[in-house]
């Protein structure tokens, strides 16, 4: 097992697209690390550069204290699962799982033995003689996992390994993958554009935007204290309310209402300055009666989220969202009031989080 370290890593594609811009990142040994970001932000490029499938334009890739920037993919002692799994269609499951061992010149009997062992561990006993074309998406994913496990590599790289599965299977695979990684303890970098996936599985995660890392932290840190408005808007199943505000002493003036300055920003704001006030819909308490420090307006949309409802209020021309538990949901056109939790609300100045 080994840590992965990236130093000032830069990748410019022929044609001038700067996909990675002087990126620094350390993934400690044994960590399950998720890379999250919108489409085109450079996640796949970062993973492929770690794997050596793309050559870095600048900077260094260090795996387990060894600088591998100039080393071929095969010499880096890593294993990768591709988004389409890349199982060889002309080989059966046994041969697919045993392929890395075939390259290492392990004798046929020994490598098939090993393949059966790994396959059994992932519940593939009945499928060992099938071709990938005869497997379901979930089974293919497990074969791909078995194949990287057979390599006994220092680190695993996964490029959206769950995106080809349907929603139900994805949840199962998520749990399975996390459990497997725990057991193996192999350093794993996991690319996804599904933030729920990253929050659920990762030990730590990075949020990327156009070749830069915008925040690194545990899922809880990233969810509760997004470092900037980009991350704030990107993370969360319902996007965070980001409202223009003006500082008025101990309070903020937001859409014509007065709310208290959040505890995280207390004492750090100058009177009269313009900031952005952020609060997640989950941290907004909804009420049909006016309250101190609440944002009051008209209910314009009510969306069903299953066990709760997402209510959109129109407050002096801006939309404010709140999550309301089932049973209490208002009707469209009602007057409503959303009180942000003071210990969960955040303030952003010039796009960056204001905090001590």
């Amino acid at each position, binding site marked *: 097992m080994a840590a992965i370290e990236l130093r000032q890593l830069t990748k410019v594609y*022929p044609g001038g697209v700067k996909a990675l811009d002087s990126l620094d990142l350390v993934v400690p040994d044994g960590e399950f690390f998720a890379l999250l970001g919108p489409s085109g932000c450079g996640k796949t490029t970062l993973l492929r550069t770690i*794997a*050596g*499938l793309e050559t870095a334009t600048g900077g260094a890739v260090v795996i387990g204290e060894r600088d591998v920037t100039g080393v*071929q*993919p*095969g*010499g880096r002692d*890593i*294993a*990768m699962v*591709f*988004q*389409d799994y*890349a199982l*060889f*269609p*002309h080989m059966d499951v046994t041969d697919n799982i045993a*392929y*890395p061992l*075939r*390259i*290492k010149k392990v004798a046929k009997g020994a490598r098939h033995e090993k393949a059966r062992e790994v396959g059994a561990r992932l519940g593939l006993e009945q499928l060992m003689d099938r071709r990938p*074309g005869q497997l379901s998406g979930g089974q293919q994913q497990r074969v791909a996992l078995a194949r990287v496990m057979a*390599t006994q590599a220092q680190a695993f790289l996964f490029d959206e390994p769950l995106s080809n599965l349907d929603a139900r299977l994805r949840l199962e695979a998520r749990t399975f993958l996390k459990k497997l990684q725990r057991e193996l303890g192999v350093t794993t970098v996991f690319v996804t554009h599904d933030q729920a996936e990253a929050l659920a599985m990762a030990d730590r995660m990075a949020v990327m935007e156009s070749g830069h890392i915008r925040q690194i932290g545990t899922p809880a840190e990233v969810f509760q204290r997004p470092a900037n408005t980009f991350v704030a808007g990107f993370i969360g199943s319902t996007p965070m309310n980001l409202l223009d505000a003006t500082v008025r002493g101990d309070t903020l003036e937001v859409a014509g209402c007065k709310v208290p300055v959040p505890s995280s920003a207390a004492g750090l704001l100058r009177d009269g300055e313009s900031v952005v006030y952020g609060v997640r819909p989950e941290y907004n308490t909804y009420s049909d009666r006016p309250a101190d420090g609440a944002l009051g307006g008209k209910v314009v949309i009510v969306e069903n989220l299953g066990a709760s409802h997402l209510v959109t209020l129109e407050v002096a021309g801006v939309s404010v969202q709140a999550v309301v538990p089932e049973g209490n949901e208002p009707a469209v056109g009602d007057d409503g009031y959303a009180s942000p939790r003071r210990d969960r609300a955040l303030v952003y100045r010039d796009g960056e989080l204001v905090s001590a």
Partner: protein
Amino acid sequence: MTRFVLGRIGFYTLIAVLLAFFTIPLLWLAAAPFTSDPTYEVRVPDFTLDNFTAILEHPYALPSLLNSLILAVGTAALVVVFAALAAYALSRVRLPGRDALLYALLLLSSIITGTAAMVPLFQLAVELNLIDSQFGLILILTGGLLPAAIFMMKDFMDSTPKSYEESARVFGASPLQIVRHVVVPLVRPGLATIAVWAVANVWGNFLMPYLLLSDVEKQPAAVIMYTLYTEGGQANLTLLSTFGLLYSIPVVIMYLFVSKKYGFRFHGGIKR
């Protein structure tokens, strides 16, 4: 209405004439070898096998079929190997001017085995001591077929996803291992297509072997066919028809076999 009927009649007459144009020679080829003393007409055969006895007695007829086989298989093997390697490289490596190079090769290739380059080719063969050598002929035929084969092969290679190879690369496979373990199995229908195409091409090639092989014992069937005359200088229809039939059968069998096995589907059989 009448005009419509007349139009239809005219249309079907035209089709019938066109069909006859293609079927009558085929019928002749099927019937004449079994007819004693065949002429240019298509007649119901009297099912004699004398013509086959005659062709078996011809000193060069059967050996020439073997020569054709050697030339065709040798050329096809070289074409498949070189085209696969070249096409793989061209498909996966970004070279400036790659497409221009391919088109130029394609254009020039029709000249290599065409009439225009006959004299220089002949001289080249003489200089290299490759005249009257089946190996030399195989090399020249290979050269003529390669550009088109590379062109076709590159299409197959382009349409196979890169992630299979990248996956093998991350496991540490060398480029040659990748070609052998992954690329070749994936493009096997393409390789089969190229092989069949090369065999058919060489099988039917008259000019090159006629020019470069003077030893009648080395000449392929297509050239021997040209020597089947009676003493009077007339085309010997008995031998010609029988030999023609023997000459076409291997190619037909090959097509049937390969098309059954690979179906000549251009993208697949393997990929979903």
